[in-house]
């Protein structure tokens, strides 16, 4: 049975439509995982030397022992935010003649094979054998390692249980924050020393390696608490962490209705953004990146490199369409057939998107005026970058985004979601990094960078005045390729 379950989860991974469609992103993630594991192992192997480098006069074992408790606290938080049990995946098995206990054991067991546990083991085992066993005897080394791994497993099952209970009792979170905060505070003000508590605990384990089994027993205990909880709560509607019905959020954007169909389309798009996590996050991130300038303008290192400011200007004033617009049609992929059949022209559809990007860029530009504090030239650069964005770049991005768009499921999470990523996301570098420099770079090299900036802005202005031509062009392309795009969305 366990074998069947394993083969099913394997198939689920490799047969997922997202897996195949995002092969490159997956390969990259896999590569990153291997690198991470490699780093953990390398760090673990050289931990002794690293600590000696940092604190030459200390004893690495003592120092590490003193830090274990902080490591565990850190791990708890990381786990809390990133760790998940895929409970919903047992739904198709619930009505079949398989004992619930079997499924739950499988689920809990499988969850133990998590990157957190593996990295922990890789990180601490070399040290346990190279240093602890070497200096304190091999029993102490084993005890030390088993103790830490046992604690990691305890945390593992504790976090699983904690997250589930949190659904029933949200107040638990406060209790935990208070406990952690108090302990941390007491530690910071040296009223108690967590570090010496940690040392004392680890020293005891080294002196009596049998203590290493204590957290193992705890881990088993938490395992069974989880098991018990799950056995009594294996109802799909109860284990689902999602809220069943979400409240209606976001305004109605009634003021946009005045602009007819285009306004309605813009309002619908704004609602789409407000009501889904991924587009919302994309937009919020964009808002945060408005502060990007603070990173460049005051930095003396960049003062001689004006050319970077052009890029910064393009980035700041165009962040919304660069970020959100690169998935232009993908956001609508879930209801694309509706887009194609509803009573509004395709030109209105494209133009509404353009107007939305135009408004966002304008708002960003107005906000960026605050950077005038760093000199008039910044304002000039941003103005020209803004014009270039709304006249040329935005159309380039929209055109690139129509290049084989991929489906996005709006209801999926925002973080680490590579759905919809395709060739377009690599091409997007062109409007950010290359286009703005086509006019500017030769003139700047010839020594007339202000003229370069002004001409870049001028080109943007001309593009803006001719915007209807660009919108027509995009619309025509859209009309020509709409069946292909729709088929692509349906197939995925």
């Amino acid at each position, binding site marked *: 049975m366990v074998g*069947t379950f394993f083969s099913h989860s394997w198939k689920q991974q490799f*047969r997922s439509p997202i897996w195949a469609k995002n092969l490159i992103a997956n390969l990259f993630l896999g590569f990153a995982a291997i690198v991470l594991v490699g780093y953990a192992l390398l760090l673990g192997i050289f931990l002794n030397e690293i600590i000696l480098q940092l604190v030459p006069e200390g004893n690495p074992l003592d120092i590490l022992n003193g830090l274990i408790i902080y490591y565990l606290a850190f791990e708890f938080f990381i786990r809390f935010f990133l760790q998940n049990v895929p409970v919903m995946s047992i739904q*198709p098995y619930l009505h079949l*003649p*398989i004992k619930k206990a079997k499924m739950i054991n499988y689920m809990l067991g499988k969850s133990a094979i998590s990157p957190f546990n593996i990295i922990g083991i890789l990180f601490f085992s070399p040290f346990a054998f190279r240093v602890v066993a070497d200096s304190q005897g091999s029993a102490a080394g084993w005890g030390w390692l088993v103790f830490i791994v046992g604690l990691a497993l305890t945390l593992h099952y504790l976090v699983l249980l904690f997250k589930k209970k949190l659904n029933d009792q949200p107040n638990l979170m406060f209790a935990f924050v208070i406990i952690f905060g108090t302990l941390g505070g007491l530690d910071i003000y040296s009223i108690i020393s967590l570090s010496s508590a940690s040392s004392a605990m680890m020293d005891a384990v080294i002196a009596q390696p049998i203590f290493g089994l204590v957290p193992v027993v705890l881990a088993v205990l938490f395992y069974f608490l989880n098991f018990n909880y799950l056995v009594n709560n294996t*109802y799909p509607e109860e284990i689902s962490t999602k809220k069943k019905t979400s409240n209606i959020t976001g305004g109605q954007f009634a003021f946009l209705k005045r602009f007819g169909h285009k306004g309605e389309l813009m309002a619908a798009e704004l609602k789409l953004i407000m009501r889904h996590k991924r587009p919302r996050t994309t937009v919020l991130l964009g808002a945060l990146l408005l502060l990007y300038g603070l990173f460049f303008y005051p930095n003396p290192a960049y003062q001689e490199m004006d050319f970077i400011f052009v890029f910064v200007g393009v980035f700041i004033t165009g962040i919304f369409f660069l970020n959100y617009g690169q998935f232009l049609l993908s956001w609508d992929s879930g209801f694309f057939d509706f887009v194609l059949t509803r009573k509004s022209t395709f030109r209105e559809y494209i133009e509404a998107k353009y107007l939305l990007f135009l408004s966002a860029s304008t708002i960003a530009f107005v906000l960026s005026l605050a950077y005038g504090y760093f000199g008039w030239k910044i304002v000039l650069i941003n103005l020209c970058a803004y014009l270039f964005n709304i006249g040329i770049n935005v159309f380039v991005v929209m055109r690139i985004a129509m290049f084989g768009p991929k489906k996005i499921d709006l209801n999926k999470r925002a973080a680490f979601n590579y759905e919809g990523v395709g060739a377009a996301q690599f091409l997007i570098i062109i409007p950010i990094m290359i286009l703005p420099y086509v006019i500017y770079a030769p003139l700047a090299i010839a020594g007339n960078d202000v003229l370069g900036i002004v001409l870049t802005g001028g080109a943007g202005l001309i593009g803006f005045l001719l915007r209807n031509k660009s919108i027509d062009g995009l619309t025509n392309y859209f009309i020509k390729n709409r069946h292909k795009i729709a088929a692509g969305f349906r197939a995925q």
Partner: protein
Amino acid sequence: MINAKELSKSYSSVTVVNIPELSIPKGESFGLVGNNGAGKTTFFRMILDLVRPTTGSVTSKDVDVAKDEDWKNYTGSFLDESFLIDYLTPDEYFEFLGSLHGYSDGDLKEFLQRFEALFNDEIIGKKKYIRDLSKGNQKKVGIVGALMGNPEVILLDEPFANLDPTTQIRLKDVLKEWSEKSQLTMLISSHDLNHVTEVCERIVLLEKGEIKQDIQTSDSTLKDLEDYFAAY
């Protein structure tokens, strides 16, 4: 066979099912009708222990389904696509179910052969995942899966929806044949009054979670039901 007592389910004070007493004897073909939101699916889910009743309980062979899992061994069910493992091919799915019911390869082949007409050569041996099948074909996979392992009880939610006319007729024949041949207790919910009156001996009409009518099917049943829903 299946008994519901004081059974109710509420979601934040809205009661969606409220059945004080209902018992379905062994071998009965039982039809459940009602408009959207009448509570048909929720009732079925409670029979399958997929929804926790707010009050009361469902027993199958006098054992509470929420307390013991024995019912799973003799109950076949298909309510919706979440009952399927959509990343498997139909062959893999049937093999998996077959292994649960102790079918040998030969048993499985023989079993599936009986549904050749129903499958219409679109399901077995095609290299397609269940999620890539049409809704109708997914339904066929689910229903045939539910019939595996000689169940004593079978629950189907809207078995006729999404199926083409030929398949609807074939499915009706399959269901009739099974219920007559093997004393199968059959619970079907449907919006299709024609089919349900034809297949089921007894029809229960739910409205807003309550039983409004409980009738033995006769020649006039279809007309009565149509009149009821027309006047609703």
